[in-house]
């Protein structure tokens, strides 16, 4: 076993490279800048392209253009940049452009605290697009997750032609950590699917048995049309309500019906009456708290979500089956707990959160469980 020592941000960059990402564009912003730095170091010598845009809007715009031209593309920013990405994110959602977007969250609101962590963008990532259609959000807890979930993020973006977020946090992205890269299990790499030979390419046509259009790159032999307007199969504007409804419903369905396949999680001691549910860096304190409680003879279950959106309803309900009480811990003032309350209607759902730049400690979690 040989260990490397790197930040979560660096692990995301190396994961992206391994996933086949050859286009990156970003704008400097703490705590995400080291992704840009690392991509700039590793991509150009590999024949890839790494750009620093004139702003965040341009950075993601470059990525959308490159993705439509056939390259796997990624961008990275923090909360203030996600705000600026918003309109382009809606474009990627509605027009099915594969892209991986990393949000290394900092303490908000607004420019907030550049060098302090939080998980304050969790609902923003889901709902910060016009039209409100679903996106995929994955949450790493450590440097291993940063690498592994980046591979998965690219696969999901390619398969479902949608934006996939990696909701990191300063405390994951800029914390250096030992990592055994060789020991990480790799999923098979997925690439966007061209139409089978013999089937004519129609930009947004849904072939039988599929929920996602086939992909052809702009610039190849077959003409490709892409548009941010409400469109029919050919990629021209449409005002036909039936056609519009079918398309909108499909954009929702293609992710909602598939989330069981990409509900990433960790769980411990599944049968207790009380279950802690958390995600991101807080996971690490929750694990310690769960160990302490077990040693004290008061075992609790722990469910760690690594897929937050779409909400992995089946996973959550299954893991919470034995629990009558669920304690949701978040590094914000209460966001995802609303989903848990909805999904686990009938169970007691408690919340403990903190948003002051400090990590939630194992002791705080233990107290929230014991005294709640």
């Amino acid at each position: 076993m040989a260990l490397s020592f790197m930040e979560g941000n660096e692990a995301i960059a190396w994961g992206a490279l391994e996933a086949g990402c050859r286009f990156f564009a970003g704008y400097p912003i703490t705590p995400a800048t080291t992704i840009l730095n690392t991509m700039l170091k590793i991509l150009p010598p590999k024949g890839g392209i790494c750009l620093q845009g004139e702003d965040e809007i341009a950075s993601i715009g470059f990525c959308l253009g490159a993705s439509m031209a056939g390259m796997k593309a990624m961008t990275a920013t923090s909360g203030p940049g996600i705000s600026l990405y918003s309109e382009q994110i809606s474009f990627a959602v509605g027009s099915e452009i594969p892209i991986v977007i990393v949000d290394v969250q900092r303490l908000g609101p607004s420019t907030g605290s550049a060098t302090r962590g939080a998980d304050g963008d969790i609902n923003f990532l889901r709902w910060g697009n016009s039209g409100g259609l679903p996106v995929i959000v994955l949450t790493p807890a450590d440097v291993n997750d940063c690498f592994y979930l980046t591979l998965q993020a690219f696969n999901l973006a390619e398969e479902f032609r949608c934006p996939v977020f990696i909701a990191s946090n300063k405390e994951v992205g800029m914390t250096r950590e030992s990592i055994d890269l060789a020991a990480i299990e790799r999923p098979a790499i997925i690439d966007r699917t061209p139409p089978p030979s013999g089937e004519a390419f129609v930009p947004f046509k849904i072939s039988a048995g599929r929920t996602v259009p086939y992909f052809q790159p702009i610039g190849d032999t077959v003409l490709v049309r892409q548009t941010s307007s409400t469109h029919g199969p050919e990629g021209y504007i449409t005002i036909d309500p039936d056609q519009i409804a079918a398309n909108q419903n499909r954009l929702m369905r293609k992710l909602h019906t598939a989330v069981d396949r990409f509900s990433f999680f960790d769980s411990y001691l599944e049968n207790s009456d009380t279950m802690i549910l958390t995600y991101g860096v807080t996971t690490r304190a929750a694990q310690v708290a769960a160990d302490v409680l077990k040693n004290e003879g008061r075992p609790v279950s722990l469910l760690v979500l690594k897929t937050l959106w779409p909400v992995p309803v089946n996973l959550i309900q299954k893991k919470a089956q034995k629990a009558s009480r669920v304690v949701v811990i978040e590094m914000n003032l209460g966001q995802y707990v609303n989903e848990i309350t909805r999904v686990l209607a009938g169970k007691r759902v408690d919340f403990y959160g903190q948003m002051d730049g400090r990590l939630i400690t194992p002791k705080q979690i233990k107290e929230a469980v014991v005294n709640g």
Partner: protein
Amino acid sequence: MDSLLNKDRPPVFCPGCSHKRITTALDKAFRNMGLKGNEVGIVSDIGCSGLFDTFFHTHALHGLHGRALTYAAGIKLARPELKVVVTMGDGGQGIGGAHLLAACRRNLDLTLLILNNFNFGMTGGQFSATTPPDAQVGSRFLNQLERPLDVCQVARSAGAPYVTRCSSYRKDLAAIIEQAIRFEGFSIIDMWGICPGRYTRSNKLTPKMIEASLGQLPPLEGVVAENARPEYGRRYRELAARQHPAAEPVKIEKKFDPPQIGRREVTLLGSAGQRILTAGEILCLAGLSAGLKATQKNDYNITVLRGPSISELVLSTEEIGFTGIDKPDVIIALSQEGIDRRKSLFGSIDQDTLIIQIPGVTLPPSQATIHTVNFKSSGIRSSDWATAALVILAKSNTVLTLQMLNAALEARFSDKSLSAAKDLVEKVKDSL
């Protein structure tokens, strides 16, 4: 060569709209160049100019208002052989101003057609960045307050190597467009035209008047000699090819046994410039050489050479959960502002905690074992104090050993900086 116009989707502009002429001229330019549909990408944004991509049988991307140049840049870099034409109105030019400036500075091989008709046609004739102050438009009096932008002068100052200002009624419009597309680099044509649906309903504007107005401006007809330089994409590929491949992440094998089993926590309290983060990294690399897991959580201000710098290190024979530290085994206290930032830490520690401090700093009261070391009087620079403190720990096999420390220095440094680091170790070993 065949027309690239989309026969199924003829232009839908208002009767008398100059955009129609531009559509025809663009098609003629494509034909004259012998371009096939799959050799061209049209990128458009919002407004009447945003309809252009639908009139042609080419690759097409229609996106957000003012952002067309951003998609075009991604497409062109991914597909250097594609001829990429961007259409934008005076509205897109205004809202996408930052992208326009950047495109001029970048000089990527794109052709930007600005369909300049002095107002927002589609949304009701509001004023744009080019509306004359004395025009009657849909923004009541607001256009009287702002000065119209001469996009060509702006483009020229921003470094565009090819700028043409012309009337959409020029007989040789197709040739003008063709020249711009043929130019290898960023080319802009500011095409003045008439919007019969909105602008000329309340303002008199004729092709002759456009010609007369243009005649009063300094002519710009293509190549801007002072901005001539290599095209961005070509240059990017040249420079990228010269970059050395990035080194793979350094891998450290377990070579030693750690001095302790379990979890050890070390907090470095110092200031920017004391290389606190580097020392923290060295300690973790030392841990790796003994097969330990390690985490390094840093805390510093947004200022660069000022302010406290804190590094929290965990080394453990087990997987590391929580990366925070509330009862460290060791505190290395090298500056008052670093200590002040973590005042609360001292309330939780007892005699099991070892503090290595420099003279002259004030620690909050605690039960800890304190070891004061005067690095300064031994001639050690403050940027080396944190690493020197690691040597002191290693001498007593606390958290790390000298072997582990040396392995870390060899993994982290090379050449001169490695020998300087090793000299430091010897010096501290012998004198402190």
